């Protein structure tokens, strides 16, 4: 008994390992996978949605992302994993693997979270890690691993374009896959033409595969890329359409080495209804053998599905077989698959392997969330074609590239396609500060269409917004129409500008922890808000606004002093009006009736030679006007922002060189002088007058 068991074990081991040569060879898988990656939307999605700025060009953990993808395609055959790369589309999925039960169906294997280690859900989990793990290193490692996992997933799809993998045919030594690899190595032009497209259309799967009912044994829709359960063994015509699984197409239309005309096989594991003897006609073709051209007769597929290519050679005993009407079930005529057959197969199967692989890659990244707005009020839209029901969470990267969830920024929502969530708000993270304010990773996890635990990542920009509310310090009323700017304190660039509205509010984009507020137009001198009701003349003295400065409405209220300049003026004793005025060429006239036809007439002529304002603190001199000036400038032109903090204090001096002529005369109603003038005095003085900061 022990000897029998040992023999059985040897046979099992031999059998298991003997099948390894039946897959597309690993270098073929690698190139098919690279090509699928190139044709997919991966590059665009990585750049535009996932925040990998270099897309597929990115080097992660020493390798390009296309290399990680290719590595997955290459390594899925490692050890005895290949035993699970078969799928007989006519069998129940639970027994559709190699020889029914030696290996698992490739569809189940691709979704086997217990044994595979690289199942679809494992790749999803790895992708979540790539989006959410705290350290950059962990995220990158996970992204690389996710791409390797995708490479392994498409490997399973590609194997469904190998006849032996869909017809339960473990096979050693030279075969279809060997030929494909040999052409890849030694006839790149031909291989490139296979990659480029199939002579039969359609070669790209109908997107409807995503909507087909799921099979509980392997519920993720990618199973339908391999088997839609639409080809049932009696309807090969269905495989000419685009809505068909790749294993079904291959099973119904091609032979593998030991499954040639097996429609009448007794063993159900070997019995395949199509192609059968009624599916073919015979034709002679010229082929090269040993340097010579000879004729060889082939079975050409002429009906029952896809047509127009060589299926197998006609066996040498064909004539004999027909002449004596031998029983097919007793005497095999031994048709075989030669190089020409393999080439005809590859012409149709290789491009489909690429197209279906591309479809899987695109499916993985199909989810789309579109976010817009600011943190005061933002929303997101389900941009996918399928409903989303799950949790949306925002993450941000701090200055050390540590990815952190944004406190309070998790929402559980069910969104139909184009469904939106609106009027959300969040507190821009402040501890620690973000590396790039406003930049977030929005991660969805939940149901996406028929996929129970899908993952969608989307880098979004949610502009941080704040409200600067200006009120008059004197009475607390809103200050309207004031220009306010948010300035990046590090770069000096204006982040946003705005005018205060009827309530004194200006909405401004800002960068938390990097922004100062510049109030340009309230007073005639520039002011940077320095906190509370203090101000500065320089950006360095400005208050860097923190999120803690804002109230629940993201608002900071700034009491603004409206600054005046004041200085004492003398009254001329005779005319009783101001001795001087700040006008280069001014005059004043006044007539007061005295009641008896006489008028008390006052006339003053003003002039300025020069007025300057000199600051006390630094001696800075500002010319306010001269003899030829069109007018005089307010002394506040020499004020600085800090002066707003010094109400009641003297900040400088006016140095005035002025002149005036004051005349007072009694006149009659016609303006004629009555008697001598009461006074007629010319003044010309240089004086220094202190200027005090005043508030309106």
């Amino acid at each position, binding site marked *: 008994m022990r000897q029998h068991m040992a023999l059985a074990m040897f*046979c099992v081991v031999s059998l298991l390992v003997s099948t390894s040569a039946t897959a597309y060879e690993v270098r073929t898988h*690698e190139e098919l996978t690279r090509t699928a990656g190139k044709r997919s939307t991966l590059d665009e999605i990585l750049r535009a949605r996932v925040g990998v700025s270099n897309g597929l060009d990115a080097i992660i953990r020493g390798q390009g992302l296309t290399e990680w993808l290719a590595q997955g395609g290459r390594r899925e055959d490692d050890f005895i994993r290949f035993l699970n790369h078969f799928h007989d589309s006519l069998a129940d999925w639970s027994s559709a693997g190699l020889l029914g039960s030696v290996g698992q169906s490739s569809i189940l294997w691709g979704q086997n979270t217990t044994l595979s280690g690289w199942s679809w859900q494992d790749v999803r989990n790895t992708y979540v890690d790539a989006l959410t793990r705290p350290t950059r290193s962990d995220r990158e490692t996970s992204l690389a691993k996710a791409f390797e996992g995708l490479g392994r997933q498409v490997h399973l799809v590609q194997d469904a374009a190998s006849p032996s993998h869909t017809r339960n045919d473990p096979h050693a030594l030279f075969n279809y896959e060997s030929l494909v690899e040999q052409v890849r190595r030694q006839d790149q032009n031909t291989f490139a033409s296979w990659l480029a497209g199939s002579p039969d259309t359609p070669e790209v799967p109908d997107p409807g595969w995503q909507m087909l009912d799921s099979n509980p044994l392997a519920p993720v829709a990618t199973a339908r890329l391999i088997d839609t359960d639409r080809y049932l063994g009696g309807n090969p015509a269905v495989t000419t359409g685009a809505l068909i699984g790749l294993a079904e197409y291959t099973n119904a239309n091609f032979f593998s080495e030991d499954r040639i005309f097996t429609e009448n096989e007794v063993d159900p594991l070997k019995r395949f209804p199509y192609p059968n003897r009624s599916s073919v006609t015979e034709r002679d073709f010229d082929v090269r053998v040993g340097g010579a051209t000879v004729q060889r007769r082939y079975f050409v597929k002429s009906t029952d599905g896809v047509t127009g290519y060589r299926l197998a050679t006609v066996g040498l005993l064909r004539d004999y077989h027909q002449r004596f009407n031998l029983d097919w079930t007793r005497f095999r005529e031994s048709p075989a698959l030669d190089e020409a057959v393999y080439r005809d197969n590859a012409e149709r199967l290789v491009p489909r392997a690429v197209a279906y692989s591309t479809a899987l890659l695109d499916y993985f990244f199909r989810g789309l969330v579109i976010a817009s707005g600011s943190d005061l009020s933002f929303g997101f839209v389900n941009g996918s074609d399928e409903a989303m029901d799950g949790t949306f969470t925002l993450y941000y990267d701090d200055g050390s590239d540590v990815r952190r969830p944004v406190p309070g920024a998790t929402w559980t929502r069910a969104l139909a396609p184009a469904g939106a969530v609106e009027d959300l708000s969040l507190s821009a993270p402040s501890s620690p500060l973000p590396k790039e304010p406003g930049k977030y990773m929005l991660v969805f996890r939940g149901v996406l269409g028929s996929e129970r635990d899908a993952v969608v990542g989307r880098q979004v920009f949610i502009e941080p917004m704040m409200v600067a509310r200006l009120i008059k310090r004197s009475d607390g009323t809103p200050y309207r129409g004031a220009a306010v700017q948010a300035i990046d304190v590090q770069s000096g660039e204006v982040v946003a500008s705005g005018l205060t509205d009827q309530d004194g509010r200006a909405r401004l984009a800002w960068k938390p922890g990097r922004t100062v507020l510049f109030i340009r137009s309230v007073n005639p001198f520039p002011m940077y808000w320095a906190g509370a009701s203090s101000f500065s003349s320089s950006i360095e003295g400005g208050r860097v606004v923190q999120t803690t400065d804002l109230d629940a409405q993201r608002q900071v209220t700034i009491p603004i002093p409206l600054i005046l300049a004041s200085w004492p003026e003398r009254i001329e004793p005779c005319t009783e009006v101001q001795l001087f005025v700040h006008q280069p060429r001014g005059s004043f006239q006044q007539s007061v009736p005295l009641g008896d036809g006489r008028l008390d007439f006052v006339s003053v002529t003003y002039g300025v030679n020069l007025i300057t304002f000199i600051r006390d603190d630094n001696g800075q001199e500002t010319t306010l006007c001269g003899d030829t000036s069109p007018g005089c400038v307010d002394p506040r032109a020499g004020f600085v922002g800090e002066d707003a903090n010094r109400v009641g204090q003297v900040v400088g001096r006016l140095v005035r060189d002025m002149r005036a002529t004051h005349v007072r005369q009694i006149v009659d109603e016609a303006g004629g002088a009555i008697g001598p003038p009461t006074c007629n005095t010319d003044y010309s003085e240089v004086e220094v007058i202190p200027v005090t900061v005043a508030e309106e």
Partner: protein
Amino acid sequence: MIPWLRLVALCGGLVTAGAPAAWSQDPQGWDRYLDRPRGPYRGQVIDAETNAPLAGAVVVALWWRNRVYPFHSVAEHYAVRETVTDAEGRFLLDAKDVEEGAPRRTYHPEFLIFQPGYGSYPRKYVSPKGFTGGIFEGPGAIVELPRLGDREERRKHLWLFGPHSYSDKPFRDLPELMRRINTERIAIGLEPYSPE
């Protein structure tokens, strides 16, 4: 039939059925494996448009071997070598040590020829057309590489091959290839590979 006997029968049936079907199916005239040392390998690399020789192009030869077990084989890396074209665009890759010591079922080498700014052989080249097995044996062959156009074409061309397909430690085994790939990456604004 008791289960173990059924298994043995199935096993035997498959093994015996597999052998004849595998017989005589190698493509005509195509040698899969090295039957003897075939090097040194020679060639000339030129600009497809101007026919000017491309000096400094890297030529990589990669040998795979098929390790065969009873009814089973595993393809694995055997060796990799590189050389650089001279001023006339010619290369000579002496692989005597590799091929004389090559185990049975070592495949003919695969080649990669790469020059920054150009398409590569065998991913994007102009000639030779058709069957290319063994073209670098004996007197060798002329390989015409097309100058690539814009940045987009150049970066997508780099997706078609990767240094890690030729070696797990490309900086150690293929320093000239890595230098040129990095030159190309930098030229089109991509980060270069760095040694792990």
